[in-house]
């Protein structure tokens, strides 16, 4: 995952990266309840877990997960503008699991910034055409009423 230039550049520019080897720091493994390897976890600047990815992912999938990490980290701080940007980046990786999740949350970030209810219906309409069989599409059904 890490030799990929796009992944390396994103981590270098946007995160504070820490490698925790089980032999060097078993206490940290216990502290964060690690149950499988690799586990990659994002924390907010105040040390709270944003989310974790367990298991190996190929480059594009992992890149998408990193974009989602950044989006959720911004959303946790109600920084909707930057959240929207990072979720949008995830949504552009069309053949990844991150894309529909990014598309859904990009819409949520836009809605959260404006409270414009018409945006939710727009998201629903988008999911009628794309990623129709994903759980993210199903989550938008409630907004079409």
């Amino acid at each position, binding site marked *: 995952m*890490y030799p990929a230039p796009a992944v390396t550049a994103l981590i270098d520019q946007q995160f*504070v*990266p820490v490698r925790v*080897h*089980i032999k060097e720091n078993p206490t940290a493994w216990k502290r*964060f309840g690690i149950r499988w390897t690799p586990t*990659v976890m994002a*924390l907010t600047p105040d040390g709270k877990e944003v989310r974790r990815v367990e298991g190996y992912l190929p480059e594009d999938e992992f890149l998408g997960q990193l974009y989602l990490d950044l989006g959720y980290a911004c959303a946790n701080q109600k920084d909707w503008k930057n959240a929207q940007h990072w979720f949008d980046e995830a949504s552009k990786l069309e053949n990844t699991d991150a894309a529909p999740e990014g598309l859904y949350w990009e819409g949520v970030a836009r809605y959260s910034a404006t409270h414009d209810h018409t945006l939710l219906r727009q998201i629903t309409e988008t999911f009628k055409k794309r990623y129709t069989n994903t759980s993210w599409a199903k989550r938008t059904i409630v907004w079409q009423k």
Partner: protein
Amino acid sequence: MATAAKEIVWQHDVDAAIAESARTHRPVLLDFTAAPQ
């Protein structure tokens, strides 16, 4: 001439990284590994 991809400079102290994260407003990325050293 092709340039080499930049390598990630991994830190190893979780709490120091969280303190840096608070200063820089960049999230921490923890990579838990058991790969042979």
